[in-house]
């Protein structure tokens, strides 16, 4: 009988690992790591299930993947794990800094921190949540309902000068003023008479070592078309403003043809969309690779395209200075931001590796979890779970039953 009991125990013991399942509530990284260690050491379970209160780190996800590759059925489910993501991109702006794009469930509150400490608390709205951060230290950490997402600091941009070419006029003057006030270094060569130019800085250095972008104010810039084209093909940015693409040599670069000028309907600058009060040259017959950037009443005002290694932005406006002077609110600041953004969109990006990028982390933890472990599943049925404790209880029950059977047989003749 003892031999029978021993045999039964050995059967249970040998069969247990192959039929066992583990369900783990991952409350913190250390507990999950401990469970992973236990699952990995013999006897390993046939299936494990992680109920994630937080998204496991990359190391733990890889460990779970390794278990799956070793034949263990790995599944996971989540309770209230928020879908979060953070993306950080450098700004092509003389002020430097980064732009952080944040995704999280709408209505939640997120905190954004860097190596120094808390930067901001953000109420997440539906759609894009983007922040411009002039100064950051190391990686950015996004925290939403206890879930961290982390993105390393990007390389920083080395801004180059902006060269302004065209006729002397208020548009050129106020574009230069706006860019300089935003910190751009501006060189210019403005025509005031036949072979008479007013020059500022070193506008002839049309190469990406010195210049990030060229602004052609009007068709008179066509005389530099060859240099502008070479510059653009080598990675430089070009902004073709007003009627500049009317000049044949610049037309080949432009995202579209320049249509007949639409006069300003009025000079009343509404605060909601102040550029509606400006006259413009519509962009017609766009090139196949052109991307419209701004439209008015179905007509494209701004478009961009890549040609060679550089980028070209075509802007139909030729009197944005009126917005700066006569616009409502802080129109000069809006005008500065607009022109800085236009130049940034086109400008050549020379980068310097981030000196303190910070430790790498999961920029989108939940998405990484899906990528590594697939879609969430249900935990294994409880009846199939044979834990070590249950195993001993079963053995005890079996031994008790054997004892009862033995006793029954012994006492059968006693009556």
């Amino acid at each position, binding site marked *: 009988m003892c031999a029978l009991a021993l045999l039964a125990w050995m059967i249970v013991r040998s069969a247990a690992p192959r039929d066992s399942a583990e369900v783990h509530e991952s409350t913190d990284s250390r507990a999950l790591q401990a469970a992973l260690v236990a699952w990995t050491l013999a006897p390993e379970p046939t299936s494990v299930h992680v109920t994630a209160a937080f998204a496991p780190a990359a190391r733990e996800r890889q460990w779970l993947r390794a278990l799956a590759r070793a034949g263990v059925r790995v599944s996971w489910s989540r309770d209230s794990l928020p879908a979060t993501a953070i993306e950080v991109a450098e700004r092509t702006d003389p002020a430097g800094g980064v732009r952080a794009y944040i995704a999280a469930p709408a209505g939640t509150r997120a905190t954004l921190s860097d190596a120094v400490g808390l930067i901001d608390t953000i109420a997440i709205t539906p759609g894009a949540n983007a922040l411009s951060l002039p100064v950051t230290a190391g990686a950015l950490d996004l925290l939403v309902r206890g879930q961290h997402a982390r993105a390393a600091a990007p390389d920083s941009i080395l801004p180059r000068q902006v060269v302004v070419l065209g*006729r002397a*006029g208020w548009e050129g003057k*106020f574009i230069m003023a706006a860019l300089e006030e935003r910190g751009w270094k501006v060189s210019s060569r403005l025509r005031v*008479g*036949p072979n*008479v130019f007013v020059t*500022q800085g070193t506008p002839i250095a049309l190469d990406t070592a010195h210049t990030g972008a060229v602004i052609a104010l009007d068709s008179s810039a066509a005389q530099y078309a060859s240099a502008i084209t070479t510059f653009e093909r080598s990675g430089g940015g070009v902004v073709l403003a007003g009627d500049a693409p009317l000049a044949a040599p610049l037309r080949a670069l432009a995202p579209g043809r320049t249509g007949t000028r639409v006069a300003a309907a009025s000079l009343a600058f509404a605060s909601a969309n102040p550029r509606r009060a400006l006259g413009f040259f519509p962009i017609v017959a766009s090139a196949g690779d052109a991307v419209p950037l701004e439209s008015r009443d179905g007509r494209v005002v701004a478009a961009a395209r890549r040609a060679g290694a550089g980028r070209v932005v075509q802007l139909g406006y*030729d009197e944005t200075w009126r917005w700066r*002077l*006569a616009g409502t609110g802080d129109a000069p600041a809006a005008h500065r931001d607009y022109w800085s953004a236009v130049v940034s969109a086109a400008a050549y990006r020379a980068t310097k590796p981030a000196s303190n990028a910070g430790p790498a982390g999961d920029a989108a933890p939940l998405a990484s979890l899906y990528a590594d472990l697939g879609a969430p599943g249900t935990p294994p049925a409880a009846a199939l779970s044979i834990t070590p404790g249950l195993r001993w209880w079963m053995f005890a029950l079996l031994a008790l039953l054997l004892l009862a059977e033995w006793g029954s047989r012994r006492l059968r003749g006693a009556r």
Partner: protein
Amino acid sequence: MTPTFTFATAQYESGDWDSAPLVPPNIIDTIARYTEIPVTPAGVIVSLASPDLLRYPLLYLTGHLPVRFTDSERRQLREFLERGGMLFVDDHNHDVDGVFHKTATEEITRTIGEPKPLPNTHPLYSAFFKFTDGPPTTSHELNGWGDNLVHKNLFAVMREGRIAVLYSSKDYSSEWGYHPDSKRFQSVDNTKFAVNIVVYALTA
């Protein structure tokens, strides 16, 4: 082609803002004569208190009499200057002891800041024609009228590295106050400095 430059004369409630009516056509003629800057054939008069001020980024102001801006004139002018406009003020009295100079500089100081001497090496003096000795003298200075001084410098209030207010005690308003056709009787065109002021305003 869209006209890009319109000469604007400032009208203010006090004083004699219209004391030099021949200056605008003379300067317009000079701009058209020496440059290819598209220029509106006739100048405009714009009230300092009017929002229309913000349509003309270069403004000319002169007079003989005391200048006292109203609150709305001062507010509008400050807005104009802070947004990047440039004001050229010329003392038609050519007299630093005169009422125009004393009141106009006081009003400018109250509005945007105190005018300071402009170095004679400033880019204004090489914006188009070269004036290596600084601002050109006027016949009124040389003939001893007004304050009997030859003013070595113009004055300026700077904003963001640019001239916001250019102040002259040299009486260019008298010097340039003649019909444009009379230029042919002069051996040297004395309005050339006006080209520098306009070109500087348009390019700096």
